């Protein structure tokens, strides 16, 4: 089985879907000739031509809005926001339009658009190239938000997102792009949107997280295994709508739950996960639900000292896991 990087899995999924269905096309800033600022669309312009890998004017609301119009017509647009931080001008199109098109038309129209955006920090990106924006969209029924953690999941979930008949926000951790490598089957496969995935089996404590933090949690778990603490790790994969069954099952399995996100703590995805556990698992818990997240400051600062202070890492997770295990 070939080994590829996280970003190669993105490109592979896009290429295969464009070959499979000529209605699939890409639009965004610098996605064409340049192949994207991160090279996620590298080679696709040469392979599929200008109109299927469309360099748009620098205007995010139009990237989303034009994509939405094309999707209503029957195309399968994959819009790229250059950085998740720059999705803000498109929020009206995403929330007021894409998310509500099926509902407001009573199932007459639908909007099969995928909006991809690199998120996350640890790349010297400072306030506006490091953010996690998923919580902003995670109370909008009609949207699905996918945040894969491995190259294998990237390929299967991006294909599923493109084939989905509703709008999907697909957030890719930009530090994971070249940091993470893994086996990815050559054949066509899709993974179910809305399903979490157990990334490590364990019986002592449960960690529920998503995105790059899954990778950090796995590293921390290996260290703890050396001292006999076995962590169970659930990767949410889809952060909205949440896989409630899988969350409840994972929480009940060990009775000690650590929730991890790179985002700011208050109002984050893991707050909702904690609420699901509180509603369903009270008598199965052996410790209070613990949350590990970024500090509640506007965003990640540029200076390495402050960036490191904000950013999640395996050591922070390991420390929290030990605390929880010892409770």
């Amino acid at each position, binding site marked *: 089985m070939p080994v590829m990087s996280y970003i190669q899995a993105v490109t592979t999924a896009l290429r295969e879907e464009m070959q499979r269905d000529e209605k699939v*096309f890409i639009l965004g800033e610098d996605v064409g000739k340049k192949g994207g600022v991160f090279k996620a669309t590298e080679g696709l312009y040469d392979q599929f031509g200008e*109109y*299927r890998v*469309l360099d*748009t*004017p620098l*205007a995010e*609301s*139009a990237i*989303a*809005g*034009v*994509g*939405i*119009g*094309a*999707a*209503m*017509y*029957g*195309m399968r*647009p994959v819009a790229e926001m250059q950085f998740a931080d720059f999705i803000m*001008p498109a929020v*009206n*199109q995403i929330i*007021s*339009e894409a998310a*509500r*098109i*099926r*509902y*407001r*038309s*009573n*199932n*007459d*129209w*639908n909007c099969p658009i995928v909006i991809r955006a690199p998120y996350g920090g640890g790349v010297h990106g400072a306030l506006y190239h490091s953010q996690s924006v998923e919580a902003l969209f995670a109370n909008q*029924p*009609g949207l*699905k938000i996918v945040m894969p953690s491995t190259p294998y999941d990237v390929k299967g979930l991006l294909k599923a997102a493109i084939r*989905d*008949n*509703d709008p999907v926000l697909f957030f890719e951790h930009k530090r994971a792009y070249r940091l993470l490598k893994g086996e990815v089957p050559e054949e066509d496969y899709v993974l179910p949107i809305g399903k979490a995935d157990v990334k490590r089996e364990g019986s002592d404590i449960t960690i529920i997280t998503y995105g790059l933090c899954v990778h950090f949690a796995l590293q921390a778990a290996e260290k703890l295994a050396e001292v006999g603490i076995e962590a169970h790790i659930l990767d949410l994969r889809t952060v909205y709508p949440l896989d409630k069954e899988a969350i409840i099952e994972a929480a009940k399995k060990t009775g000690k739950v650590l929730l991890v996100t790179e985002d700011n703590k208050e109002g984050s995805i893991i707050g909702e996960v904690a609420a699901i556990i509180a509603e369903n698992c009270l008598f199965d818990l052996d410790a209070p639900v613990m949350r590990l997240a970024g500090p509640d400051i506007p965003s990640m600062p540029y200076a390495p000292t402050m960036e490191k202070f904000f950013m999640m890492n395996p050591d922070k997770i390991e420390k929290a896991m030990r605390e929880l295990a010892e409770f």
Partner: protein
Amino acid sequence: MATNRHEELGLSNEQVLEMYKTMLLARKLDERMWLLNRAGKIPFVISCQGQEAAQVGAAFALNRMEDYVAPYYRDMGVVLAFGMTAKELMLSAFAKAEDPNSGGRQMPSHFGQKKNRILTGSSPVTTQVPHAVGVALAAKMENKKIVSFVTLGEGSSNQGDFHEGLNFAGVHKLPVITMVENNKYAISVPSEKQLGNEKVSDRALGYGMPGYTVDGNDPLEVYKVVKEARERALKGEGATLVEAVSYRLTAHSSDDDDRAYRDKEEVDEAKKLDSIFTFAFYLKELGILTEEIEIEITNEIVAIVNEATDYAENAPYALPEDALKYVYEE
């Protein structure tokens, strides 16, 4: 005696009479909705009155069997011309389950009907402009000989989506026709406090497309400019911006009282130019709208409006739990 202006546009007497009927139907439906609102039977109305000529003139210049429209909330004339029925509009006014626009989910005049290629719309203004551009992009990619047509008010031409959408269409020479229905008011704020330039159509220069300001009370003038815009679009010459100037004859909506910000004299003056009368006058002068035909049309429209009202009033609402349906594909 008026001179025949529609013949040189390729319009038959039957077609101009059909335009008039559509305008009149829109007006009469709208008037009925106000009555129903004031009688406490429907919660909300937002009017097309004063803009029927622009709406119907433009719609008749399109291919109503193939083109796509992204109307804004005043466009009853556009959606009627594109195949939505009086009954369907009344079902929407009464928020009944059978309403094809939204099944009673949206406020009235939030149009949408896939079978007639009327894109579903929302309340935040101008979001429909990029959508129409997206349809035009798809049509260009698929080599379809169609255009998309999008409308909005002059106040909405200040929104970012107007600029972003039109610039996108200009860059890619897309077959999209944008018509700003300048009715002089954005709720209470007059156009001179909305627009830094005199004419909305001047903005077209910045997007690399032609812009035209036409008399929105004259359906033939609007027809002509939209027809030409469509021909250019199909030849691959790209987008056009049209500004149709008329006047909003009612308050902004049933929840607005326009006496707070404009004089009755101004409204009375505008009523003299009301296209329902001026176009009827033109057709009468040419002997197309005879007294006999006028009575026939009026009776027919009254019957349609009555029947639509009765049907919609008696139609069932959606079940409460129907609110849970269609968040995602089912």
